[in-house]
């Protein structure tokens, strides 16, 4: 998905309307299922004869059962998802009912508390998963044995830990993303004779050179509805990792050191040395403050007109370039890893992921969970996305064959995620309590980019940290 934390500006007018239309949407889906149910039954019969169904025999015959899914992944990203369930539906006879909503994050807790949760929800943040597990004892079911086995076999420890609460695995990772990227235009670089920087200092040198050539090196945008500010949290997390290493990062994320520790101050000032430098930003978009009002979707587009040259954003940004953009190593847009700062620290990749949480332990739900955590699904989803020409999606499943991803940036990201020599850390704001990770951290970063100083900003966020956690 393009943005786990994205907030569309096209919000529903009110909760009531949203619920009503969601209900309407659901009932339409239900109505449509009358027909597909029959087809599903036919598929069940085909299961025995179809050799492609061999991998699904472990799930048994699930004819006549239904699994409901609730997620924030909406059109057009939902289409490859729905397509990727077809092998499962055809071979087991189970029926998957998909419901996507932009208001997912607010509505899911409401549905859980009201006692009418979906069978499965794709939770975009581990912090939200933790909140759901701890605030509603018993509502979220621990992952079944088959899922635990898959996660142990196919996912690295970082992802398993992020889907676990107090040592119990609740959610297997679904789609994942690589966040430590700097987007650039290989064609523009070639035309100007710039080269991809290998260290932070080289990157600053390059920025100065672009400035000397009369250009603005960087562009950025952090507006994202009521989630405005989140791209800056990723910036700070990346710099924290590169300056102080993963251990200090972990302490910071878990609040073992204060949010406004001197090391964090230094890291944010380093971010500021780029983003708050009027010489460096905001290519084609305005002054420093314009970063706050530029949507994150628009933030990197000036790369294509040569009004800026560098844009730090995750792999899913690929989906935001206009259709037909050549995203490849020698194309109009590509990305390199945000370079290291401190040679003593390992090059750490910031990652994010959504997780499959189940609110029911019926056999068909568990079977579907197992399918979603298997390499079969990751490959089916990759193929489904490639068929539709979509880019910006990948899985951290090591069973994923990168060749099923059509886009070079997706392939590169999949290879990075499967590279055992790399160190990974999960997006920190996603792990922090909601009062920080999806409130004061975002707001603080927004105030910071519009002029508030570093220490006031970090102190404001530190003071908002809930006493209980």
């Amino acid at each position, binding site marked *: 998905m393009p943005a786990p934390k994205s907030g569309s500006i096209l919000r529903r*007018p009110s909760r009531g309307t949203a619920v009503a239309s969601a209900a309407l949407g659901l009932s339409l889906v239900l109505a449509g299922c*009358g027909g597909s149910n029959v087809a599903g039954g036919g598929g069940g019969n085909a299961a025995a004869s179809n050799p492609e169904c061999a991998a699904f025999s472990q799930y048994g015959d699930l004819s006549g059962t239904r699994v409901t899914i609730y997620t924030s992944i909406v059109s057009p990203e939902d289409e490859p998802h729905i397509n990727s369930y077809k092998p499962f539906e055809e071979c087991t006879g189970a029926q998957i009912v998909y419901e996507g909503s932009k208001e997912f994050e*607010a509505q899911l807790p409401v549905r859980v508390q009201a006692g009418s949760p979906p069978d499965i929800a794709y939770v975009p943040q581990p912090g939200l998963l933790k909140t759901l597990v701890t605030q509603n004892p018993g509502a979220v079911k621990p992952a079944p044995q088959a899922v635990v086995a898959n996660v142990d076999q196919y996912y690295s420890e970082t992802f398993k830990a992020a889907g676990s609460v107090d040592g119990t695995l609740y959610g297997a990772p679904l789609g994942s993303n690589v966040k430590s990227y700097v987007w650039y235009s290989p064609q523009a670089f070639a035309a100007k004779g710039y080269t991809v920087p290998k260290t932070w200092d080289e990157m600053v040198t390059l920025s100065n050179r672009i400035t000397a050539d009369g250009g603005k090196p960087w562009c950025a945008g952090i507006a994202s*509805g009521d989630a405005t500010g989140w791209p800056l949290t990723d910036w700070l997390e990346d710099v924290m990792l590169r300056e102080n290493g993963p251990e200090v990062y972990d302490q910071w994320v878990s609040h073992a050191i204060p949010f406004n520790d001197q090391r964090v101050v230094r890291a944010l000032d380093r971010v500021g040395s780029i983003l708050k430098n009027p010489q460096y930003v905001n290519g084609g*978009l305005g002054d420093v403050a*314009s970063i706050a009002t530029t949507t994150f979707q628009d933030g990197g587009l000036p790369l294509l007109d040569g009004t800026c040259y560098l844009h730090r954003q995750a792999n899913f940004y690929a989906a935001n370039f206009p259709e037909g953009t050549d995203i490849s190593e020698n194309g109009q847009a590509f990305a390199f890893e945000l370079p290291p700062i401190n040679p003593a620290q390992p090059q750490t990749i910031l990652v994010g992921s959504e997780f499959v949480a189940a609110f029911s332990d019926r056999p068909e739900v568990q079977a579907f969970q197992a399918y979603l955590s298997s390499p079969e699904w990751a490959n089916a989803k990759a193929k489904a996305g490639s068929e539709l020409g979509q880019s910006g999606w990948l899985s951290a499943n090591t069973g994923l064959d990168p060749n099923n991803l059509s886009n070079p940036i997706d392939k590169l990201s999949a290879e990075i995620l499967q590279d055992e020599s790399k160190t990974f850390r999960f997006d920190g704001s996603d792990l922090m309590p909601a*009062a920080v990770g999806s*409130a004061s951290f975002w707001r603080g970063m*927004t105030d910071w980019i519009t002029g508030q100083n570093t220490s006031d900003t970090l102190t404001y966020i530190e003071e908002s940290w809930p006493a209980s956690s």
Partner: protein
Amino acid sequence: MTLLDKLLQLLVAVAVFAAVMGVVLLVANRARGRRTDLVSGIAFTAPALLLLLIGLLYPATRTVVQSFLDARSAGFVGLDNYIRIFTQPDLVVVLRNTLLWVVITPILSTAIGLVYAVLVDRTRFEAFAKALIFLPMAISFVGAAIIWKFVYEYRPNQQNIQQIGLLNQFIVWLGFEPMNFILATPWNNLLLIVVMIWIQAGFAMTVLSAAIKAIPSDIIEAARLDGVGGLRLFFYITLPSIRPAVVVVVTAISIAVLKVFDIVRTMTGGQFGTSVVANEFYVQSFRLSDLGMGSALAMILFILVVPIVVYNVRQMRKVDA
């Protein structure tokens, strides 16, 4: 659930409804003697009262209770949530913004609607002029907010970049630098308020225009014979005659303004110091799962609405009397 299941459910629902109605009518019909009125009265109002109890009183009471509890509605925290609302700088800004909205919007929309209604009254193009100002009423708050977002949109004045925002394009034509309006705290609140005024002025105009037309023509004629015209006619005759309508318009808009949420959420998401109580209530309750704080904010909203409603009802009574 198959289609048959759903049809069955529907049938059951209709049957239950019919049964309840049957019992109500039966009880009302059976009542005899001195207490006929009382029994039939209770029979007819009981279902409505019951629904009111379940749908309104119970949640309202729960909200009151929750506003004194912590984020997870587990522990009692007394007035903590309320104290935070009035002391935490973020939330004080929210209260200030709500005050700005409530004071400015009703007054300006009513004034604009009134002046407009008087100006177009009995002119040749009255119908067209009225339709023009009434049109925004047909647009949802979210739609209106998106339209105005484009009006305020900012692009820098560099490297042949074209403005896409109407307001900034005017500024550039006049030879000034474009401005990033949405960031100009606290003035950006006024820019958001303009959207609401744009929508509500049509409503004010419609109601007030009808009231003006309802003024008996002999009063106007008498005034004119006495040599009263223009502004004096407006202040001495028109305005006093339509006073009840003005009160209704002002209070109705005030209540709508207190609940404003869509505009703020769509245009800024409450960023850059533009959040209002209703928006903050949503954020606290649903995004941050802080039910205590959310309920306390809902209570504040409720407390703010009460005096307006009371005033409105009293005015209506005066008019009727």
